[in-house]
């Protein structure tokens, strides 16, 4: 008999039954579940010796002293370097993900040349030859070669600016920050020397006018440390923090008092304090103080109330607090760390001078002799220059170098500025990442990631003492990049411009030598701190000041751009690991949110979540409304750092770029370009 259907079925049944008496089903079930914990497409970990190498991370504007954590030599994390007096073991949200950014999808792979609307890779030698060729003809003509630097503390600037000087060009500009306004005030208008410092470590009262010291002003981590040191959980606080500004920002969140001040009225508020201090017999040993005091007299509490929205009593309370404090320090700036005017800065200096807290840091000696003075460069008005170029009042540069900066994205009225940058004959970007400026550049010559490079930081603005820190390359470059100063030194050699050095390391060695610090110690993560004080000699220009102050209206709807370090900076888009730190009230899907209080929303006929168009300076952005009582009436607050057009899919096209609608105006009397608290119109979409 053949194997008929029934028999076959029985055979199968028997087989099935038999299997149950073998390891097959049980072993397979077990192994399958083990397989589910070792899926081949899930990354495996690397093991080996754990090490941590100290360096100075300049991913954030002021930089953090960090130790790069490695496993088997591969960088994977970051920890603070507690031996460093700058950030005392603290790390900012950007430097905290520094190791990941070594392998960011936005990194530029190597030198590239624009070819049509695409980039084509070239060699470093080709790049050098190409530039040398282009620059030869421009040597000795001022304004033909220009440079924009976003690194305000590095000696690399001496190399670049020295190189430009060697080519006969003075067009070296820094990206605008609070330091710009202060330098313009102190080193420019007031004719002082050195750099204004803030000895927060010694203060028993800190009054921040505008300046968001916990998020945007100066060395944020150090500010946080200085604050925390005097706020022990056990025992009483020995520091009072007062924040005067339009938004209850991160500084105000930990402040003992928040005084709501209109951003456009900040200078008036400061002058109001000057006036009250004068009334109570305080004065400052600054030239032209008496005229200044008379000018301040115009800013009685009521006048100030009109201009800044601060009620007279609140103003008097602040003045009282300043008078009783032993070491009060006044920190002035704009909420977004940029666009403030000379008036506010000068008033801030005067207040500190009247309270005996004027603190001037000496400049460190230069390494590159032919380089122009740092203070002078810091006071220069990049935005003003670009505006002039745009208007045809100044010649467009044939070659424009952009170092550690992203002007196409982060300058006020970014749209126009980007257009103006395109007028440059050849735009050269030395960016580590493919940012908006690099994307539109003719030549991209990638600089190493901060962990891969030799760099330094001298007295980042905001510190209380002249300080010097060194950054050494603690990991091998992931990409085909080259230290910008080294490239420039090579180029200068080709062009016969002698800067006195062949390699950037020698420049820094000379610098350290001149400062009188120990190279090995610095390379090991130590920081050099000098107790030398600079001269406090300066004089006030009441005339210019009165013009500037006359410009204050104190009415209408104004815009406040908020710089949140976790979201990124102008030159660093939000790193992938920082995305979760952005609140859904700041960004949701592709919509950026602007904050305003219920009263403001009501007056504009808006409600929570409403889609709006914000317009100013001939540009506009779209956003959604988030109601927050932390924003004073008449003010709209919007986060910076979103609406990227380059970078990677993690950030590209998310939200809109608030810089586009920061309307620039020239400060009367000083001519400095200002945009802090510029007017804005909000319309429902």
């Amino acid at each position, binding site marked *: 008999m053949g194997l008929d259907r029934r028999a076959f079925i029985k055979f199968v049944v028997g087989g099935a039954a038999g299997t149950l008496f073998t390891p097959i089903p049980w072993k397979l*079930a077990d192994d*399958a*579940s083990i*397989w*589910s914990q070792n899926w081949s497409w899930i990354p495996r970990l690397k093991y080996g010796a754990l090490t941590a190498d100290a360096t100075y991370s300049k991913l954030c504007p002021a930089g953090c002293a960090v130790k790069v954590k490695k496993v088997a030599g591969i960088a994977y994390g970051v920890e603070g370097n507690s031996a460093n007096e700058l950030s005392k073991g603290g790390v900012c949200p950007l430097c905290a993900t520094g190791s990941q950014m070594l392998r960011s999808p936005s990194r530029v792979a190597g030198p590239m040349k624009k070819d049509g609307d695409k980039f084509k890779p070239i060699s470093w030698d080709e790049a050098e030859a190409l530039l040398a060729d282009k620059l030869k003809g421009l040597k000795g003509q001022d304004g033909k070669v220009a440079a924009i630097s976003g690194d305000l503390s590095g000696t690399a600037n001496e190399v670049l600016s020295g190189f430009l000087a060697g080519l006969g060009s003075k067009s070296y500009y820094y990206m605008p920050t609070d330091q710009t306004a202060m330098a313009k005030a102190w080193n420019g208008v007031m004719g002082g020397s050195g750099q204004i410092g803030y000895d927060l470590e010694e203060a028993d009262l800190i009054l921040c006018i505008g300046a968001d010291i916990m998020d945007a002003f100066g060395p944020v981590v150090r500010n946080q440390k200085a604050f925390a040191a005097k706020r022990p959980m056990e025992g009483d606080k020995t520091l009072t923090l007062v924040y005067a500004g339009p938004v209850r920002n991160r500084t105000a969140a930990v402040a003992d008092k928040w005084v709501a001040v209109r951003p456009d009225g900040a200078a008036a508020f400061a002058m109001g304090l000057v006036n009250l201090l004068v009334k109570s017999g305080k004065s400052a040993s600054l030239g032209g103080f008496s005229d200044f005091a008379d000018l301040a007299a115009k800013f009685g509490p009521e006048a100030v109330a009109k201009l800044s929205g601060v009620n007279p009593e609140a103003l008097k309370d602040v003045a009282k607090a300043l008078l009783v404090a032993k070491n009060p320090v006044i920190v002035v700036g704009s909420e977004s760390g940029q666009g403030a005017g000379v008036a506010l800065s000068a008033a801030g200096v005067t207040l500190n001078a009247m309270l005996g807290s004027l603190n001037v840091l000496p400049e460190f000696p230069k390494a590159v002799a032919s380089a122009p003075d740092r203070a002078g460069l810091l006071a220069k008005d990049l935005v003003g220059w670009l505006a002039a170029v745009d208007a045809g009042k100044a010649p467009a540069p044939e070659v424009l170098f952009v170092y550690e900066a992203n002007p196409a994205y982060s300058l006020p009225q970014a749209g126009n500025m980007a257009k103006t940058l395109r007028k440059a004959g050849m735009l050269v970007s030395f960016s580590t990442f493919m940012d908006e400026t690099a994307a539109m550049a003719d030549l991209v010559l990638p600089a190493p990631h901060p962990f891969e490079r030799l760099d330094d930081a001298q007295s980042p603005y905001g510190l209380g003492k002249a300080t010097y820190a060194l950054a050494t390359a603690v990991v091998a470059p992931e990409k085909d990049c080259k230290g910008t100063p080294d490239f420039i030194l090579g180029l200068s050699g080709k062009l016969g411009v002698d800067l006195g050095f062949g390699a950037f390391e020698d420049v820094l060695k000379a610098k350290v030598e001149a400062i009188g610090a120990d190279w090995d110690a610095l390379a090991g993560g130590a920081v050099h701190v000098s107790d030398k004080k600079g001269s406090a000699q300066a004089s006030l220009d009441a005339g210019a000041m009165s013009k500037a102050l006359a410009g204050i209206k104190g009415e209408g709807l104004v815009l406040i751009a908020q710089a949140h370090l976790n979201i990124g900076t102008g030159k660093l888009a939000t790193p992938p690991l920082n995305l979760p730190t952005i609140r859904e009230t700041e960004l949701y899907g592709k919509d950026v949110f602007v904050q305003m209080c219920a009263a403001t929303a009501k007056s504009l006929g808006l409600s929570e979540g409403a889609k709006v168009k914000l317009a100013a300076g001939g540009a506009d952005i779209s956003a959604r409304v988030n109601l927050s009582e932390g924003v004073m009436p008449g003010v709209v607050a919007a986060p910076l750092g979103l609406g990227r057009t380059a970078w990677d899919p993690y950030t590209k096209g998310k939200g809109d770029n608030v810089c586009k609608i920061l309307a620039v105006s020239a400060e009367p009397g000083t001519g400095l370009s200002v945009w802090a608290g510029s007017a804005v119109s909000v319309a429902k979409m």
Partner: protein
Amino acid sequence: MDSKLFPEGLERCSLGKFLGWLAFIGLGLAWGAYAAGIIFWKGIGVTGLDNYFGFGLWITFDLAVIALGAGAFFTGFLKYILKIDQLKNIINLTVIVGFICYSGAMLVLTLDIGQPIRAWFGYWHPNVHSMLTEVIFCITCYCMVLVIEYLPLILEQKQLNKIPFLHHLAHQMHVHMALFAGIGTFLSTFHQGSLGGMYGVLFGRPYAFREGFFIWPWTFFLFVLSAVGSGPVFTVLVCTFMEKLTGRKLVDFKVKALMGKIAGTMLTVYMFFKLLDTWAWATDVLPRMGLTFDQMFWGTVYGKWMLWTELFLCGVIPAIMLITPAIRNRPALLYLAAILDCLGIVINRYVFTVQTIALPVMPFDKWYVYVPNWAEWAPSVMIIAYGFLVMSLSYRYLPVFPQEKALNSK
């Protein structure tokens, strides 16, 4: 064509028509199978679930069908243990419905867990403290019991029954059915209860938590009672639906009314305790957590209307309708009451699942709204289609309704 497979002396629609019907069911199955495929391949990230709503449509669906499937064990209990003989006319149906509900629920659960390959850990590494462990064990065991209860019905299929061995087997199983009914009752009571317990023990979730006395036995028995208070009438609805579909009378209305009476009685008991429980919760449990009754609700999605609907429109009212003979004995009203009853239970399972975890417990926390997406709906539809399939085949080929012949003889 397949007429010699039909139950003795009963007529069924043409094979073509039947195949057409199966094709229609097939659509639902196919859609669900597609979704299931993607879910197994890509993970449940494709669903509308999230870290707030780890439980959603699927768990609600499971709890609901398991409650509605309770007709099986309870009717079995009454028929075999309490010997209410009339129920023999509908007992087969209750078993099939129960089987569909439970097997369906288990199918959905394998989709619902993030690591289906490890599903067996539930048996191999059980945590005896977890109500879910109790549920897993009871449901699986009871599902087996249902298979055993379903089997003799299959064996009674005209052709199979000709084989002496199978015939005797079926007979023997019938003889011992009381035993299985007993086991079934025991198991079901437990897991229906522990399903309630599952929520009752969430002491971090004020919406579901019932302190001390209220964990045991309250939510436990509330779930049991609500299940037996709705299961029987659900079977009645299924039966009536089939009658409408086939155009043949399948079960004598007296039997349906009896089922209604049984469910009604249970529902009344349930509502009494449920109202008591809700009152104690609102006036005692919540205040001690520093919460008010009003804080438990938000907007329309999580509004109070849902609670009132559950308790009164779909609770008290059907209860009254079902225990009042005058109403109960009017077909239209019986069915209406049954529908409300079942609806109420579904709402109950929904709020316990979704509103419980939607409620922000931290004062600075906020409400979020959960919307299931297609990837969750499709498998649910698949399970329903699967139910239709099993039911259609059973009706066509198995002697499900003892009364059918008598009721339809002109």
